[in-house]
């Protein structure tokens, strides 16, 4: 029975492989409608807490020194990092 089942599949697969090149690709409906994109993603993401920042300081000898430090991300001050998406069911 299993073999017959598989053979049937093979035959059907061969039959459908000869689509016309310029015809639209065959379509079928989703089993469930896609969720609205604004809430679809359950992607785990967030704004980084800090940025790297280079500053310059004039030293006593008159030369300039550059130093890179991490500073709080100003974007987080501007607005909460509301970047985790809505929940999507697994």
């Amino acid at each position, binding site marked *: *029975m*299993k073999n017959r*089942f*598989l053979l*049937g*599949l093979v035959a059907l*697969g061969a039959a*459908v*492989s000869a*689509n016309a*090149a310029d015809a639209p*690709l*065959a*379509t*079928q*409906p*989703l*089993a469930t*409608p*896609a*969720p609205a*994109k*604004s809430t*679809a*993603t*359950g*992607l*785990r*993401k*967030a*704004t*980084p*807490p*800090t940025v*790297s*920042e*280079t*500053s*310059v*300081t*004039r030293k006593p000898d008159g*030369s*300039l*020194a*550059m*130093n*890179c*430090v*991490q*500073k709080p991300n100003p*974007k987080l001050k*501007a607005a*909460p990092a509301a*970047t*985790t*998406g809505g*929940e*999507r*069911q*697994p």
Partner: protein
Amino acid sequence: MIHSSMIHTAMLRTKLLCILSAGALLAAAAGVARADSPLQSGVPATLALPANNLVLNAYIDVDATAKRLTFDVCSVQPCGGLQGAPSSGDFDLFVRYGTPFPATGLSEDIINRYAHYHAVSASSNETITVLPSSRMPLRAGRWYITVVNASQTAGNGTLTVTASPATQLGTIHVDFGHPSTDPDAPCDDSFWTDTTAATPVGGNNATTLGAQRQNALFHATNELVTQLQIPIDITVHACGAHLGGDMNSAILAHAAPLTYLFDDPQFPLNALPKKYTWYSITSAVRLAGTSGCSLGGGSCDGVANEELEAVFNEDIGQPNIVGGEKFYLGFDPSPNPGHSLDFVTIAMHEMTHGLGFFGLVNLDATQGPLGAKAGISGNSIAFSNLSLGPYDDIYDDYVAIVNGSTYTPFMGYEVNGANDAARIAAATSGPVITQDGDYNPGTQTGLRWSGAEAASSSVNINAGKAAPDNFPSLYAPCDKITTTTCAPEPSSTLSHTIQAGDMMNAFYSGFNLRSMGLAVPMLAPLGWSNASATAPVFGQTIPSNWFDSTHNGHGFDFQVVLRDPVAGHDVYLLTFYTYDANGNPEWYQAQGSFVDGVFLPDLQSNGQTLYRLVYTSSDLGHITAHADSVAGSVIVDFNQAAQSPACRNVDRSSIALLGVMSWSIGNESAQWCVQPIVQLADHASPDLNGHWYAPTDGGWGFEFLDVSNGTGAPTVVVYVYYPGANGQPTWATASGTLNVTGSTTLNLLQVSNGYCRLCTPPAQGLTGTSVGSITLSSLQTNLPAGRPVGAASITANFAGGSFVRVNDPISELSVPPGAP
């Protein structure tokens, strides 16, 4: 088993269709013919997609000469051009290597879980580039493509797949527009359009200040692309801002990736090699071969299509700011002998941080526990009061704590921040600094970079030494500026090198820099390597009873019910035995495929993947049931489970096989860390482990755990699933010594102090109350064709009635362990 159908192996799914008519439950069967369409490289195929429709399993066969495989879906013609208007619709693009997407029961979520790559922005233009260095590397074979129109309106366009035998560099695009007047995060585009006349300098031949700045930034981005051989596109939002300063100091620039993200069962990012691990969006885009908005979903308009932001202080050059010092905007640094305020160097350094050269471990006591890994609190990355996490981050995954000739991972497996103190000790292991600006370059620290590419790199002055002496040191001063004891310097520690003259030094003034130095090999394992990748090795599972030791008493029976060579996946039946809100035993089921180390359940006709049967009849031979209305879903991911926070709440370091079960039922959801109760090596012989049912009395059944006792009689444990009071699905357990050749009667116990899924386990443990008995007899194994069989009698009492069977013929529903 209960489950319905009580049928036989290869026809399981087909048989389940019969159940559909009774219970209106299960998804359409596998094995429905696929209308796969072959594509030719470079030849557009036409898309005409009604709303919520898809093109399934178009495919292209690629040979071993391909070095770049690009998938383009677009609705603007010509593709990538500006002519014509985009059609309506929202095309999403999914790519899978080797085996096709399933034929039926598809939601976009399930398609995404099968996909090795995805592009799911809100637009109808999507691109994915797969390379030999990608996680699922480009190689000869069949690549399947599924395109979904996720909008409520129809859309037209084309799908083009191009296999190229040549490598190709990408571009770091720079957006000089999209200003912002937000006082906390300003972005002034006039910095780039300043028409003040400027004299060409150092190869930068523009004649206005704004144009010179643009050119200098382009020069910096081109250096990054060339030195890293970046093969995909990235977009930088370039801003000016009045960041002020005084005569002695000023901010020059700052930069960061716009987001960090990680792969999690909630939303898989299968292109990322490490699960449950923070990646900068820039690294993630490199690995996923698509833009940030296509990787994460959502709009691609404006800055939403960008991955990195770099902000430059437009007050530099004012007379009252550091004495009027100006940015040097030349490409060639030699005309700037003091190398002061070298714009290209500053831009390269900062944007290298933006590419992911950045550790997330907390070094600032005001932000949370020192040494803590980063999690999420609310919607932000945080180090305390976490709602999710903590998680490793990919940069810190390549940091080592070095003590003499030994070293340990800076991250790695640990429980509840156990290594926070060790991380801080390493992060303060360098020279003492007692005032701002102290710097002792070249002194090795105990905080090192362990990535192999950097350790052996020709730019590493310690290359050639034995590990860990060849690990480049990271900046890790013992900061005594404000304290008498060592404190981490939160501002520069960890994310900078100390090798003298390296671009990623925390202090990099006076350097004649156009070389990224150690950053090239250090960025390699973070996603920027162009070396050919090996195919991923996915997690394994075994048919068994699985449970979370911190939710003892709940668990699931997980058995193979069909080996499906057509799809290339085994089909599993999952029975989740648990307790309802009142602590009463109940169970749910799911059926699905084991794909790339993940149990992916079929979508049922009720739109759920985890369902609960309610019985309408328990009559002998005529058990009927239907799914109730509770929404449920389940995923069990066996890939890299030890990296999941769910597996790090207690010490599981000695457990070889772990999975993360993500479930939701109603408005409850959680991720549990599960492990098998019985290993295959502990099975008794003959091996009766599996899921059993009554073929002529479908609707009840049991899981059979049959454990070896050496030369003694095996121990048997059964989990019995049957209709309880008011048709509710209930379960009970029994255990004892199995008489394989005779009859075995076991006391049937039901947990009387069960606890809800999100509740704390009872301190006194679980208590069993006898509800009847089960007798197993006439067990016959090793049948040449077919499954083990036998007979079972059961009496299970409940309030108001009982479930009774006498000598019901039983058979193993699942594929016996080891059977083909």
